[in-house]
């Protein structure tokens, strides 16, 4: 079996074993195993299932974020878009929509449009993505305070309720939704010309445009996707929570970016995969759960969370300098 290492299958196996998505997954497994020995009940099936369900929200937000980061940008408005979705959905529900599907679609169209506006600013007005999406976030937050005020709004949408609480075949609907989105995202990213264009744009926008890549429309689409997935995450979080309020999306900004980078996607653009973002999202909720177990005050929890993310990135997320 000495030829094992040199055979094509051996090479592929080694490539998978040393890939960033796999390493992140291994890290999740290690943390789970250690934590279940240390803390009673952590390793129970129900608890782990709950963690993955929480991870689904981050995973959905981070799906769009992965597209944007690979294309060489960043979307700092995702948290505000999650909140927009979770607040406008209860306000939008109407009697003539018994299943709730129409209002969900309307909200997703709205959040996609917000993303496209981000893309317009980046592609046509040539505003830096950080400035454009941060300004958009600030604008949306102001608007939400005017519309919703400080009070929470309760969702009475059947579809949303189902998404947040149903467990077909014992699996939470949120996880199924995440699974479906993951399959679509991975296919689009790695098996279509559209995906290849995004990688090219992120690695070298000038060379991409001289090669005929339609940079403007691709940028609009990428930010539109980010608006769409953030909106979808807002629908899910509303269903799990029952109520929407201003600030409900706030935890998902740092989390979405951290999940992308933990999964091995280059923050400089052009390299990466959603296959790494998936375990990255689960790793983040796991850390949050561990910190809760430690039973510290909210201030210390936040400090711990920030330090842990930094530590993990130092362990695995540093990139080689590019020439």
């Amino acid at each position, binding site marked *: 079996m000495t030829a094992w290492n040199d055979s094509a299958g051996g090479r592929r196996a080694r490539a998978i074993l040393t890939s960033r998505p796999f390493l992140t997954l291994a890290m999740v497994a290690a943390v789970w195993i250690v934590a279940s020995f240390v803390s009673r009940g952590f390793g129970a099936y129900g608890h782990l299932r709950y963690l993955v369900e929480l991870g689904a929200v981050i995973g959905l937000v981070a799906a769009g974020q992965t597209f944007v980061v690979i294309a060489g940008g960043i979307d700092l408005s995702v948290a505000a878009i999650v909140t927009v979705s979770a607040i406008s959905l209860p306000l939008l529900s109407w009697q003539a929509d018994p299943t709730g599907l129409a209002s969900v679609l309307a909200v997703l169209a709205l959040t996609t449009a917000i993303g496209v506006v981000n893309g317009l600013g980046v592609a046509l007005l040539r505003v830096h993505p950080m400035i454009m999406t941060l300004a958009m976030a600030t604008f949306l937050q102001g608007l939400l305070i005017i519309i919703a005020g400080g009070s929470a709004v309760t969702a009475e949408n059947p579809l949303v309720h189902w998404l947040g609480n149903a467990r077909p075949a014992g699996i939470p609907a949120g996880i199924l939704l995440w699974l479906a989105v993951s399959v679509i995202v991975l*296919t689009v990213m790695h098996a279509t010309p559209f995906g290849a264009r995004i*990688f090219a744009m992120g690695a070298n926008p000038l060379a991409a445009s*001289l*090669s005929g890549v339609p940079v403007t429309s691709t940028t609009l689409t990428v930010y539109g996707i980010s608006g769409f997935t953030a909106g979808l995450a807002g629908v899910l979080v509303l269903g799990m929570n029952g109520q929407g309020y201003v600030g409900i999306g706030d935890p998902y900004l740092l989390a979405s970016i951290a999940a992308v980078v933990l999964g091995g996607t280059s923050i400089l653009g052009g390299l990466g995969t959603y296959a790494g973002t998936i375990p990255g999202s689960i790793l983040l909720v796991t850390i949050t759960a561990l910190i809760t177990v430690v039973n510290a005050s909210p201030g210390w929890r936040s400090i711990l969370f920030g330090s842990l993310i930094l530590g993990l990135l130092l362990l695995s997320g540093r990139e080689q300098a590019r*020439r």
Partner: protein
Amino acid sequence: MTTRAPLLAARGVSKAFFGNPVLRDVSIALQPGRVHALLGENGAGKSTLINLLSGALRPDSGTIEVDGRAVARMTPALARQAGVAVVQQELSLTASLSIAENIGLGAYPKRFGLVDYRELAARAKAACKLVGLDEPLSTPVGNLALGRRQMVEIAKALYRRPRVLILDEPTSSLSATETKILTDLLERLRGEGVAILYISHRLNEVMALCQHVTVLKDGTCTADRSLEGTDAAGLVRLMVGRDPGDLFPKWQPSLSPAAAISVAKFSAGLMRDVDLDIRTGEVLGIGGLVGQGQEDLLLGLYGAIPARTASATVNGVSGLPGGVPKANALGLAYVPADRKREGLHLIHPIITNMMLPAFARMPALKLRSRKAEGEKGKSLAAQLAIKGDLQRPAQALSGGNQQKVALAKWMPHDPLVLLLNDPTRGVDVETKREIYLMLRAFAAAGKAVVLLSSDTPELVHLCDRVAVVREGRIVRMLERTVLSEEAIVSAAIGAERRKVAA
């Protein structure tokens, strides 16, 4: 020839990267007052040898000597102390800093611990004067054309008053006049006793300028001799290891009267009101001094920068493309001059680079077939003699092979018009010949080739017609019968008007 100790020398140095020997037992001695040529194809080990001499790398075995004394551990700092200055092939300038700041970078004159800008300006100005740079010193380097940036790079080396000056392909992006300034300068430095190591792929320059030559082939030294009594063909034989065929393919007319592109009163960037017909089956050369608007002409036709025109027909469709995807659809393809910045995605696999124009044109959500891509890539690589695993990132390739990838990616689309921006810059003789053959074959197949080049012999030997650009206008269209280097250069600098007047 001389008994003086060489200012800088390598004795029997070897170097390997990851087990691949790049240099094997190579010796070279740089004597004061001599221009020493270092020749070899891409990948022969020239850059590695320079890095050893300048302390950027350390040899696995062998020694580096300064003034005849062996230096145990050569470092960049020691090399600077010894007066060694290197003009790198890859420009090392910072785009957002001014000319003066770039020239002084790392060796700013200080006063009370702060940068003495007055002193810096004075010394930078002196260095600029030597190389004929007359742009204001406060101009950001990013605003300069490639050729001018190269001159800043040379001025940067001179600012350090070197005893040993190493130049790695300094003329590959220079115009004829700039090259002349540089050769005069090197002659003068040689007279002052500076030791110069000169690397170039342009053999006529080497023959005119250098006294001594070292030839590298596959990491070993195949010649270390005086240039007296050698000819260009002999040098090529030493580099390639076999008899040189003609560098340029035999010219055969393949002109047809049909126009591929025809524009009237075309303006884009620096170009103003140009009338131009590009015919099918011809190689149309674009010449002139660097930065007169030639590049804008190509980019404007390609739709990459805004352009205006009174009337235009492109492959039978009226009107300019107005955008790159549209231009591609009309059968136009563009190969940029700066392949690292504009042509390739260096961090992506070679095969992805080759397939990108296809990805840009396919329906966005059609499923890709990795197998079909692999086969396409393999056949393109075979067609253009690109060696090695196509899954490696493009930055692993040598300059010549990168250029081939930049060309190869358009081949599957069978473009009707090929717009080329200096495609042989920094490319070795063998690859140059392959590219020339390809271009002529392309024209013979009834396509149009537009060849913008800073290499005048290339324009003379390869083109059916040459349009000479000066100050944003085509000042002269030279037909095949009157093509010569003199005709191109004199039209480029506007000398012929004076001749008529005299």
